[in-house]
């Protein structure tokens, strides 16, 4: 079990020592790639020690678009190495798994984030790497966006988690709440739906690891304080009040967006 | 000489389309401009068939005939369909063995030839159309006898060439009929 990132108000930023290799799985559109890129950046800033390097592996074999390889420029700037299928971001849709993926298992000095393709189908690629993962310090986390159909109820999230675990053939370690409707400021959405995700955490027995926001922290803290006020009535909401936050920057855009990759 | 536009119509199998080709070939052999435009499609298989032949000394505009100089018909429905498209002063040649009711038009020349009956009597039903073509050649002057004979030789397979003298005799008989209007 990896370290959890629980923290106290008012500083809700991620802390602690994560697993050496973190995998993000999730349903289509849950925001796995966005979370992966930002988590890798957080690792680079807060966890990486001298002699270590952070590697982001784009293992999405399902969908050739909106993938973490889109953030190549930002990753390069942050000194993060990207491993992606050789045809990622070309005209070709051959989602071959890059052999370099093995480096994250073979090289202890790597802190790795693995961005896995959508749904249980994408998680199947994890199955082909199962042998390599044995004995490694690994966290397999599921990213949830409660604004997406199928993961908009605690039960829906539970079913999704079960399907992902079955396809990957591995036990999941935790849930990431990535509530968003794509707009810049997702805090209201996060507050509105946190109880759903928190309840799913109880149902599945998987800890709620962190939530993500694109917005301003002070607003978020106010909102959490409001949530804490009603927390006594809901154990799920109570859990939420302790939730650490990953403040994200947008990095994966459709290439026509003039602000992409700036 | 002026353009001649000829519509030939009847049932499929009566040699309608071939008759058009004979006329067109004969005119071509005389060095004239010519077009042959068939009705095709479902009509080709068992239903009615018709074709349009235009002969001219100048390049031909439309191969599609709206107003015909000559109408040759071998069944009733075709006559009903095309009779109103014959120009005033035009020529209508009818197989009267098969077409009984002929609409009353006094502004045309009308030739009624019991072609199918005559052809059966002559021992070959395929001759029927030849009587009508003989009449066409004689009355319109659009093709010469010699070029028609040459066209038959050209168009018919060698194994049928022995029929040509008999067909030419039939052709000549067709030319003996008189205007009934």
């Amino acid at each position, binding site marked *: 079990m990896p370290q959890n990132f629980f923290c106290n108000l008012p500083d809700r930023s991620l802390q602690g020592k994560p697993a050496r290799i973190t995998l993000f799985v999730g349903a289509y559109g849950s925001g796995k790639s966005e979370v992966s890129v930002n988590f890798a950046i957080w690792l680079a800033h807060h966890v990486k020690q001298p002699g270590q390097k952070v590697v982001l592996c784009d293992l999405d*074999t*399902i*969908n050739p678009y909106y993938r973490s390889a889109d953030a190549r420029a930002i990753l390069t700037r942050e000194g993060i190495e990207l491993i992606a299928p*050789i*045809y990622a971001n070309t005209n*070709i*849709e*051959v*989602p*071959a*798994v890059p*052999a370099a993926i*093995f480096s994250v298992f073979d090289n202890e000095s790597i802190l790795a984030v693995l961005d896995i*393709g959508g749904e*249980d*189908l*994408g998680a*199947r*690629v*994890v*199955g*082909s*790497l*199962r*042998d*390599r993962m044995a004995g490694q310090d690994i966290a397999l986390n599921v990213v949830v966006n409660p604004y997406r159909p199928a993961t908009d109820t605690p039960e829906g999230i539970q079913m999704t988690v079960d399907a992902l675990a079955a*396809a990957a*053939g591995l036990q999941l370690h935790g849930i990431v709440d990535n509530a968003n409707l794509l707009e810049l400021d997702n805090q209201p959405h996060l507050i509105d739906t946190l109880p759903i995700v928190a309840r799913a955490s109880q149902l599945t027995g998987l800890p709620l690891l962190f939530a993500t926001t694109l917005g301003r922290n002070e607003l978020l803290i106010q909102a959490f304080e409001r949530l804490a006020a009603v927390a006594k009535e809901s154990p799920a909401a109570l859990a939420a009040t302790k939730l650490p936050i990953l403040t994200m920057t947008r990095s994966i855009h459709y290439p026509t967006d003039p602000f992409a990759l700036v | 000489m002026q353009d001649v536009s000829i519509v030939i119509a009847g049932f499929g199998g009566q040699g309608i389309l071939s008759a058009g080709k004979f006329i067109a070939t004969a005119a071509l052999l005389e060095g004239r401009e010519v077009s042959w435009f068939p009705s095709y499609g479902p009509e080709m298989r068992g239903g009615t068939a018709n074709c349009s032949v235009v002969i001219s000394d100048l390049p031909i505009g439309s191969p599609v005939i709206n107003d015909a100089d000559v109408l040759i018909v071998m069944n009733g429905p075709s006559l009903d369909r095309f009779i109103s498209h014959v120009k005033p002063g035009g020529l209508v040649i009818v197989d009267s063995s098969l077409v009984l009711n002929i609409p009353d038009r006094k502004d045309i020349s009308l030739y009624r030839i019991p072609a199918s009956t005559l052809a059966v009597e002559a021992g070959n039903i395929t001759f029927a159309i030849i009587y009508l073509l003989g009449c066409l050649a004689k009355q319109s002057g659009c093709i010469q006898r010699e070029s028609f004979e040459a066209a038959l030789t050209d168009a018919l397979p060698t194994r049928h060439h022995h029929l040509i003298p008999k067909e030419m005799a039939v052709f000549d008989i067709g030319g003996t009929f008189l205007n009934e209007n």
Partner: protein
Amino acid sequence: MKPVFTRTTGLTDKPFHYCPGCTHGIIHRLIAEVMVEMNILDTTIGVSPVGCTYNNYEYFACDMIQAAHGRAPAVGTAIKRVHPENMVFTYQGDGDLAAIGAAEIVHAAARGEKISTFFVNNAVYGMTSGQMAPTTLIGQVTTTSPFGRRPEFEGYPINVSEMIATLRGAVYVERVAVNDFSHITKAKKAIKKAFRVQQEGLGFSMVEILSTCPTNWGKDPVASLRWMEDAMFKQYPLGIYRGQDLEV
């Protein structure tokens, strides 16, 4: 010491882009080795399919053309008709050949086109990410048969070799596998035989090659080979389906 196993000159220097453990690479090498051994590299024209191997024209050192999905047999037919003295092969996957291109392969075989088809069957669509193929096994889970292939809903797998073998124009049809040394050796012999049949002008030849897809099967490469033996061999028995007595 002499080299007894080297990279064949039938391949270009370009490294394959396939996933680790994907056996397309073995099949490419076998075809390339046979072309060199038969001295036909300079006269062979290959037809690339649509699928993971769409750009294998970059790997084979002979003249190559990329065909639309399923149409390789039609393209190959025409090339052979234009250059009857040349050798023509098509390289096709199970979606390409047995789904969208079912008509083309059947008719090329029925016409007895003097081309050789190498049909790679891995029971799944690789390129478009793991959908059900015509050859997907009963019960096999794919992205488009998430409940496992159910005969009553998705129907049955197609045994292409058995089907093509019913056609008189197909003079040589064999199913092989590339799961271990002896089967790979047999596969190479079959590929050579297919080319020999073409060279002799006898008619259409096809070798169906059972292959793996570790990524979309969700199994590591070694386990994938075992799954091929355990699951695929039952549905797709190896052997010669036409041309048992053929001497070429």
